């Protein structure tokens, strides 16, 4: 864990995520206005009274953004928790139990995976009237667990063949104990990275649904964009209306992606973008670390002439 935190990308990502979590909690309290309250300044740019300007109804964009953070974070995390639990159940069971169970669960996983999630969510949410944030999170969670389940199944399969699991099985340990004490601890990184990835996906999905207008109760960043798009914010040059919400999504997504890079590099250090690839030789030349040509430091001085090699001579 310590070495994970030493990873610059991961810490940066966690720090940004922390800020979002903070705003998810205090956002509604520190918002200067009621996000739905109308005002007299219609579509006005940033000012002292409205730091991020106003909408077509004179609503304060900053307040909408702050209040909306809670819904985004709530839906993102709840959906990711649901999806992660499902993916662990399905993926680990498929990978560990094997045989018919695996076949069935794998087909099920792949079916859910190839059916396009966003259109499915759209028809489900629009068929249901009046969806709460919790219900949205449930729907998103139920439709987007499959990718992680696939990854977890593959990981479990390879873990199952390792010595320590084989040993536990041979000694007759109970299945649930092996899964709980031998497998899961070794899957932590994969599960964590799947969780983080799902948070991104869930946030984007919620915002998408709100942006299309299938869910429209309460504020989130998608709702802001829905009104901005519908009320011709673009035509009126009202950049303050749609830029902040998008940036908020992008930075959150970026933070989560950074955390995931950190996890990936933690798990397989080879993926790290090459740290020190240039070396200095004793002769003062710089050489590069690369596959196929091991760097040579020191040693004898270079040959005066290049020897004529068989291939060249011919």
């Amino acid at each position, binding site marked *: 864990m310590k070495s994970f935190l030493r990873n610059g990308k991961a810490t940066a990502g966690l720090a940004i995520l922390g800020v979002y979590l903070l705003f998810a909690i205090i956002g509604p309290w520190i918002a200067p206005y009621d996000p739905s309250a109308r005002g007299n300044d219609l579509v006005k740019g940033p000012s002292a009274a409205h730091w991020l300007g106003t909408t077509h109804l004179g609503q304060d964009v900053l307040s909408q953004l702050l209040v909306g953070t809670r819904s985004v974070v709530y839906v993102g995390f709840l959906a990711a928790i649901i999806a992660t639990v499902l993916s662990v159940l399905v993926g680990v069971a498929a990978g560990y139990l094997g045989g018919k169970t695996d076949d069935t669960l794998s087909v099920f996983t*792949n079916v859910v995976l*190839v*059916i396009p999630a966003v259109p499915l969510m*759209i028809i489900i949410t629009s068929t249901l009237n009046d969806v709460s944030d919790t219900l949205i999170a449930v729907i998103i969670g139920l439709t987007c667990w499959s990718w992680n389940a696939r990854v977890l199944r593959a990981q479990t399969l390879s873990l199952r063949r390792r010595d320590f699991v084989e040993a536990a099985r041979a000694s007759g340990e109970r299945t649930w104990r092996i899964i709980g004490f031998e497998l899961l601890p070794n899957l932590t990184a994969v599960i964590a990275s799947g969780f983080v990835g799902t948070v991104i996906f869930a946030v984007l999905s919620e915002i998408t649904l709100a*942006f299309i207008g299938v869910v429209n109760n309460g504020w989130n960043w998608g709702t802001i964009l829905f009104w901005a798009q519908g009320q011709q914010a673009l035509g009126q040059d009202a950049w303050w209306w*749609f830029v902040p919400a998008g940036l908020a999504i992008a930075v959150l*997504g970026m933070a989560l992606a950074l955390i995931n890079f950190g996890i990936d590099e933690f798990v397989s250090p080879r993926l790290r973008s090459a740290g020190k690839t240039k070396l200095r030789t004793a002769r003062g030349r710089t050489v590069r670390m690369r*596959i196929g040509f091991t760097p040579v430091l020191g040693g004898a001085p270079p040959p005066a002439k290049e020897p004529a090699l068989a291939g060249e001579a011919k």
Partner: protein
Amino acid sequence: MKYFLQRMGFYLFTAWAAITLNFFIPRLVPGDPVQSLIAKYQGQLSTKSIASLYVLFGLDKHQSLWTQYVDYWKQIFHGDLGLSFTFFPAPVSQVIGQALPWTVLLVGITTIISFTLGTGLGVLAGWRRGSWADGLLPVTTFFSSVPYFWLGILAIYLLAGPDSFFPSSGGFDSELVPAWDQYFIPSAIQHSLLPALTILISSVSGWILSMRNMMVTVSSEDYITVAHAKGLPERRVALSYAARNALLPSVSGFALALGFIVGGTLLVEIVFSYPGLGFTLLQAVGAKDYPLMQGIFLIITIAVLVANLLADVAYLLLDPRTRKEG
């Protein structure tokens, strides 16, 4: 061949699952939104189209679920997806038939370009660690975290406008009539540039990253060391040995990622009012036009399945291990 048949079977199964899902969704929901739509259009609907909507949405409560299900399938097989209320009285199949080519061309071509470009850059970044290509990573990460549609909004804001070369909405100049002629085609291309660019920028980074990571992983395989030991030219080692193998998981990933990509691209159409399925879906959602929504979901699912099948064929051609043992 066995592999191919297996995949084929899987896609048929998935299609069945999707259609069955489509059958159940409206039946699980309390209240009959379609019933009220039918009531609203009372008098304008023919008996035949009312009957078809009854079958699709399970409005006839006296029938057993099984009879409903059989009738539903019969109707789907006839291509009858009901009537669209948004484009009343056009049948859903006709509305979809008009929108589909736009989406297939825009999303299809852009996705292929994005995959090719991203894979190529990923090969560079993965092969030459620490070169300029590694510098692409943070930039692409940022763009992959931005929602497609917001990038579209920005693109319109920054690049499109009355005096700009890029039109901000539509699929073609509104003065033109769709036709395969020298006026319409350039206009359609011009209208598609900005949406295409948006999709490209948002989606390319995913391919770069996955290909880079695959290259890094493959580079440590024994056969790469052997290729170096054989004294092969660097290009051959990088392309014919490393990239060629790294491509395999990328192609199977391509198939699986399609479902995710499609979601994002539909939204881009919405932002640009591009006359494809996404924009049509938006209109259907706005008008609570359930038959059209369900029809679009079915078509998108089937299109994704077909694209998956194509990716599988590509995989079959690329990986000798899936071919018939000889």
